[in-house]
């Protein structure tokens, strides 16, 4: 599905543009210009380093957060935008909120509530690592258009079947979302007002029709591809190879993070 940033109500009645690039903020910063495969690898390894850091090393998380803030600044990504996009992780954090309440072992009084010390540590661990990971992804998504991300994944030797399918998903997400919107409007225009479970029948029928339509569209797309000489593999159009210097620059980030993580383990009491 397509992530709608402005909410369904914000969509213009006949959108000339889709939402699949809503996460990308155009720019010309070094982060924008870096090769997608380098950025992907750097973000992934950075997250690994963060996850491997002992939870007691508060200073290490401070360093990580400052590093990400500095990167966001270099990319020209306003911290408020970054913060707003972090909201996406809230549903996942709900789980962490309950840990101090239901946790076992030694307990402490906080604001009149008896909370588990072990649970508090676990919750902190999830919240800080989750937030840093999501922040890294948000910066990656804000500086890399989706097609480039896919090409980067291809460069990182992800099977081309996966990247091709993902590419089609991105391309046709908007088309299918548009189909859904039109079918919903057509239903509502005939006074359909789904409130109760037995109204679900029409919605289910819509989903079925949508599936058939999309399936048939898939066949037409394939036909159009075959008509232009498609023979089973997508042509590689440009060489996106990264130089050694580009790789070194990108990997400096996870290397620094790994150093911080290692130090945190080394000086652990």
């Amino acid at each position, binding site marked *: 599905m397509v992530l709608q940033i402005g909410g369904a109500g914000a969509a213009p009645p006949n959108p*000339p*543009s*889709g939402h*699949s*690039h809503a996460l990308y903020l155009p720019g010309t910063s070094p982060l924008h210009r870096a090769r997608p495969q380098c950025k992907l690898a750097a973000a992934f390894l950075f997250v690994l380093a963060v996850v491997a850091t002992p939870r007691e090393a508060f200073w290490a998380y401070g360093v990580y957060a400052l590093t990400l803030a500095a990167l966001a600044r270099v990319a020209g990504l306003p911290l408020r935008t970054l913060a707003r996009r972090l909201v996406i992780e809230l549903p996942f954090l709900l789980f962490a909120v309950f840990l101090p309440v239901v946790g076992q072992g030694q307990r402490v009084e906080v604001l009149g509530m008896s909370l588990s010390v072990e649970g508090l540590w676990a919750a902190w661990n999830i919240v800080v690592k989750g937030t840093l990971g999501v922040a890294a992804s948000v910066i990656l998504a804000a500086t890399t*258009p*989706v*097609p480039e991300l*896919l090409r980067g994944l291809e460069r990182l030797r992800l099977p081309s079947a996966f990247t091709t399918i993902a*590419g*089609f998903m*991105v*391309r*046709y997400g*908007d*088309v299918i979302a548009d189909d859904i919107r039109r079918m919903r409007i057509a239903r509502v225009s005939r006074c359909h007002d789904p409130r109760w479970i037995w109204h679900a029948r029409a919605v289910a029928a819509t989903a079925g029709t949508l599936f058939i339509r999309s399936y048939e*569209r898939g066949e*037409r*797309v394939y*036909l*159009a*591809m*075959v*008509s*232009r*000489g*498609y*023979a089973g593999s*997508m*042509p590689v*159009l440009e060489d996106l190879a990264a130089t050694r210097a580009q790789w070194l620059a990108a990997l400096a980030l996870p290397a620094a993070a790994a150093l911080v993580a290692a130090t945190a383990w080394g000086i652990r009491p």
Partner: protein
Amino acid sequence: MTPPALEVEGVAFAYPDGHQALFGVSLRIERGERVALLGPNGAGKTTLVLQCNGVLLPGAGRVAVAGLPVAAEHLREIRRRVGIVFQDPDDQLFMPTVAEDVAFGPANLGLRGAELETRVKGALAAVGMEEHAARPPHHLSFGQRRRVAVATVLAMEPEILILDEPSSNLDPASRRELAEIVTGLDITILMVTHDLPYALQLCPRSLIMNGGVITADGPTPDLLADAELLAANRLELPFGFDPAALRR
């Protein structure tokens, strides 16, 4: 003597479910002609189009494109020679950017580098979409997407361009723009449509198809002025369109 751009001889075709769509179709389109293929829904127009590039192969009869018979062993060359612009541009445009989509066909033919770039630029220039090369297709208007769809096929430098209902869903301005592009192309064109005024505007010659056979072949103004012929083939001119004026 150069062979005709498209030659169809006694083609009959039935779908695997037994539904027979074509009952012996014959036609000949010379190089450089612009021909309209008119007919009501279900006449077999699209089935015939798919015979031309070998997506469907005839049960009987033969099809040849610029002298090369449509057969399994040279499908690749046939598909280069026959450029089909499908009705829904969303079916045709699937790459992340306009330029990549236009490059898809020629890249499948093995073109790379500067040569590929020249093709893409030339095709986009032919439809007036150069400045949109880097945009994703779904950010374009419907009329622009149809023009890009034409460019994706032009980039393959086909012998014959087949347009399937090119005017459908276009607003009057996009319709006129597309007409200007089509008349500006120096290429053989077969235009499948039931938009009779558009056929008249763009194609000096028309074929009428109904029930899986060609029922008429002649100059477009003559065919459109023949009210009985049109009625017999479920074709109608729009309200207020005077067939007598066509003769002048």
